[in-house]
């Protein structure tokens, strides 16, 4: 098997916040009837957490699950386990109408860290970051591209986008985080 590589191999930028490409992250796009008992238990078994309420994310370390839409979840697992998790879901939900796809290598993940992390995102997304709380996921746009973001730790925000836009996203976050650009709104 070929060696898996993340989009930007851990690229970093330091300014008013630290921007870092987060490396390999296992991500499974799941679609199905999220209210179905079998779906609930199958997801919980692999994600270690129950399906969150709308716009919620439940994460413990590298494993967890995020609510993406009324019929879609993003399941996060260690990168090397993603295929096995898809197989597990497929076995548990055999005969059920659902989709579980390993999209790890179709996405790029970034973390923006520091006291100005909210400000960096606030410059790029039409989202009121002052009211954005831990345990919430927000799908939105960062400048020209779609992204999903959540608070991964105090002063740290995780951003997920399509891998094809990884360099654009890194440049964007770095520009918004450049030294001397703090606005001081949050």
């Amino acid at each position, binding site marked *: 098997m070929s060696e898996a590589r993340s989009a930007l191999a851990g690229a970093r930028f330091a300014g008013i916040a630290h921007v870092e490409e987060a490396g390999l992250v296992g991500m499974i796009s799941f679609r199905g009837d999220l209210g179905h008992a079998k779906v609930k238990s199958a997801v919980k078994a692999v994600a270690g957490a129950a399906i969150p309420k709308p716009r919620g994310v439940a994460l413990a370390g590298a494993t967890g699950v995020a609510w993406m*839409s009324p019929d879609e979840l993003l399941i996060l697992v260690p990168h090397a386990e993603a295929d096995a998790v898809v197989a597990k879901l497929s076995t548990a939900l055999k005969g059920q109408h659902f989709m579980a796809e390993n999209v790890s290598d179709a996405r790029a993940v970034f973390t923006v860290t520091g006291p100005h992390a909210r400000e960096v995102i606030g410059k790029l997304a039409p989202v009121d970051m002052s009211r954005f709380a831990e345990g919430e996921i927000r799908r*939105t*746009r960062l400048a020209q591209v779609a992204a999903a973001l959540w608070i991964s730790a105090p002063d740290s925000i995780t951003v997920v986008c399509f891998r094809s836009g990884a360099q654009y996203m890194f440049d964007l976050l770095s520009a918004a985080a450049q030294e001397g650009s703090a606005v001081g709104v949050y």
Partner: protein
Amino acid sequence: MLILECPYCGVKGEETEFHAGGEAHLKRFGPGSSDADFETYLFMRENPKGVHLERWRHANGCGKWFHAARCTMTLEVFGTYSAQTYEPPQEIKDILTAKRPGWSWRNFK
């Protein structure tokens, strides 16, 4: 700038997070229909000053299509509602009646 609330994920976002999808509640006339019906379906659209019903998609969010009732003159959004309907729900009609007495749009009033 419109502020729309997606009825599927509950996000209240500004217009650039969404994509406009044209007029709402079109009835499709396809193969076998009369030329006049087909032409109307393809080309004839409302162009109101005031109450308008439209389709929108939460393109940079949950991805779902929904409906919105808004005013083309003031850009006020009266409300948003499910895509799975042929006409605006009563609660939307009630809001329209309260805010724009005597409103009508195609067959609805």
